[in-house]
């Protein structure tokens, strides 16, 4: 894939790979097989909000930091606006300008100008030429060239003038990014379609909104003389600029299931044959109020007390709400948060697309290096978007955990309780190593919770239905004596599993 081709052992055939220059965008170099073509022109096409200017700035920034001076010409924004916008991402362009590594130039077109005969772009070329000579520029961005093109009354004229710019670029061998607004105006697009042929590499940036959730995708349309990734790739604009969402690993490189780790509850450890296994995926499914979050936090508290790190991604509650909710069950998360062992991320699923959720969560996993990850709840992830998006997110998250030897806890709110039903709600049960079903039901005017282990991979487990009692000092299994509030709940002779029988009988 990297510029080398089959030579059939012909000694006369020498393949010289194209020289490339880094894009400055995380993950993009891989797709372009090394970067933009050095000394040539790359075109970025995209609608408003696609991030064209950011791509361009990141390219110049990376070059400047490596000592390659660059010029940024824009027909759209003022130089000051670009400086301010870049500063919000922590990029101090002014410092680079002062060092002569960057030149920002707002090429203003006087909108009130009167046209009295044909004209050419010679002055712009003279400026580019003079400036690139004086600062030794190796990189150039021409941003929003469509605005310049509108100034020409006919497309033959525009074409001629752009050709002269192209010839100059060709002669100078400056690595250039040309950005153009597209998809906006089909007529413009038809008029300036020829621009594609000027560029050796064309990248389409697409910002789409589907079901009110915005996603960004890029696709390389062509790359003369180089291989490139041909798929659509999601990218995000985050507080550090543009990054591509890491591509799913091609190979399954899951760590094998590891040692048993105490679940935070002795009875549960007993029926799980020792606890949850490291690097496994645990799914806790059940209706609202069945105790899913409580069970997950029981484990988190225990793990953090052992000095392990846990990342809790809550799609339903704020960190404070979560903390106080489980506090009533005697689970104290505060000490672990204070000790830096527990991080709670709380986000509404619909606030961004699944790509962005994935990007931020993977970034957090990589920086925080947790031992345990909880996603509460899988059911809420459906609000990240339609179709395959939520499934992809969860699949990638579970894979990421398994590749890193992290235990991944998922909770899922499911209605009904039919055995054998897909309790992951998204048909990824095959990734689940331990499946626990919680139920909440009324038996003889009394609310009762129960727990049933449906599967644990690579180990024995109890096959009974156990009563689950949430007391003010934690979760208790199978015992009737220490119920919440100390109210005596007597049921003489009741056996584990009776609740299920009672429910069936009622139906």
């Amino acid at each position, binding site marked *: 894939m990297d510029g080398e081709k089959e030579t059939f052992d012909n000694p006369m055939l020498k393949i010289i790979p194209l020289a490339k220059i880094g894009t400055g965008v995380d993950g993009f170099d891989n797709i372009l097989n090394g970067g933009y073509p050095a000394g040539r022109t790359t075109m970025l096409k995209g609608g408003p909000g696609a991030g064209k200017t950011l791509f361009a700035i990141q390219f110049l920034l990376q070059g400047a930091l490596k000592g390659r001076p660059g010029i940024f010409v824009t027909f759209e924004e003022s130089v000051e606006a670009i400086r301010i916008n870049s500063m919000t991402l922590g990029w101090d362009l002014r410092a680079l300008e002062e060092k002569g590594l960057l030149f920002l130039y707002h090429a203003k077109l006087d909108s009130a*100008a009167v*046209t*009295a*005969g044909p*004209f050419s772009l010679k002055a712009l070329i*003279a*400026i580019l030429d003079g400036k690139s000579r004086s600062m030794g520029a190796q990189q150039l961005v021409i941003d929003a060239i469509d605005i310049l093109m509108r100034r020409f009354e006919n497309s033959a004229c525009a074409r001629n003038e752009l050709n002269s710019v192209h010839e100059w670029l060709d002669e100078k061998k400056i690595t250039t990014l040309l950005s153009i607004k597209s998809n906006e105006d089909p007529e413009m697009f038809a008029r300036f379609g020829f621009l594609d042929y000027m560029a050796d590499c064309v990248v389409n940036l697409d910002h789409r909104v589907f079901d009110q959730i915005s996603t960004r995708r890029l696709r390389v349309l062509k790359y003369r003389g180089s291989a490139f990734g041909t798929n659509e790739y999601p990218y995000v604009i985050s507080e550090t600029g543009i990054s591509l969402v890491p591509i799913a690993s091609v190979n399954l490189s899951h760590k094998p299931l590891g040692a048993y780790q105490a679940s935070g509850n002795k009875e549960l450890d007993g029926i799980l044959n020792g606890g949850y296994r490291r690097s496994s995926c645990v799914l806790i499914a059940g209706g609202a109020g069945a105790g899913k979050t409580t069970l997950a936090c029981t484990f988190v508290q225990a793990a953090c007390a052992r000095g392990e790190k846990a990342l809790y991604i809550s799609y339903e509650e704020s960190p404070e709400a979560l903390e106080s909710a489980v506090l009533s069950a005697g689970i104290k998360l505060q000490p672990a948060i204070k000790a830096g062992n527990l991080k709670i991320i709380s986000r509404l699923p619909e606030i961004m697309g699944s790509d962005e959720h994935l990007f931020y969560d993977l970034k957090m996993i990589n920086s925080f290096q947790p031992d345990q990850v909880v996603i509460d709840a899988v059911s809420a992830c459906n609000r990240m978007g339609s179709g395959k998006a939520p499934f992809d997110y969860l699949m990638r998250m579970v894979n990421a955990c398994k590749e890193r030897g992290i235990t991944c806890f998922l909770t899922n709110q499911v209605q009904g309780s039919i055995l054998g039903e897909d309790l992951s709600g998204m048909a990824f049960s095959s990734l689940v190593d331990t499946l626990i079903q919680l139920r909440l039901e009324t038996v003889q005017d009394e609310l009762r919770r129960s727990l049933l282990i449906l599967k644990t991979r690579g180990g024995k487990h109890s096959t009974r239905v156990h009563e689950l009692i949430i007391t003010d000092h934690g979760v208790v299994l199978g015992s009737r004596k220490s119920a919440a509030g100390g109210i005596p709940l007597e049921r003489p002779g009741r056996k584990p599993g009776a609740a299920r029988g009672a429910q069936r009988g009622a139906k």
Partner: protein
Amino acid sequence: MNKSSDPTGAYRFVLFVADNEPNSVLAKENLEHICKEYLHAGYTVSIVDVLEDFQAALDNDILLTPTLLVEGPRGRRTILGNLSEIDRIILALGSNV
């Protein structure tokens, strides 16, 4: 490169050209014709070759050649092109032409 019939002239022109490219040559000729023909109140003309002085183009936001910057009774005006469309120029220069 100043040409003037009256140093206090009502119109001050700066014409940006690109050496001797055909449109630049035409613009110089057309401007001279307009001045002699219509601007009896006086004018000053300076000509800047952007190929020799790109900084002047940068400082004055000149991207296209030829560009004529006019300062006259009706304020600042920018006129683009080889100045062959005389009617438009007269209109842009104002009523006292």
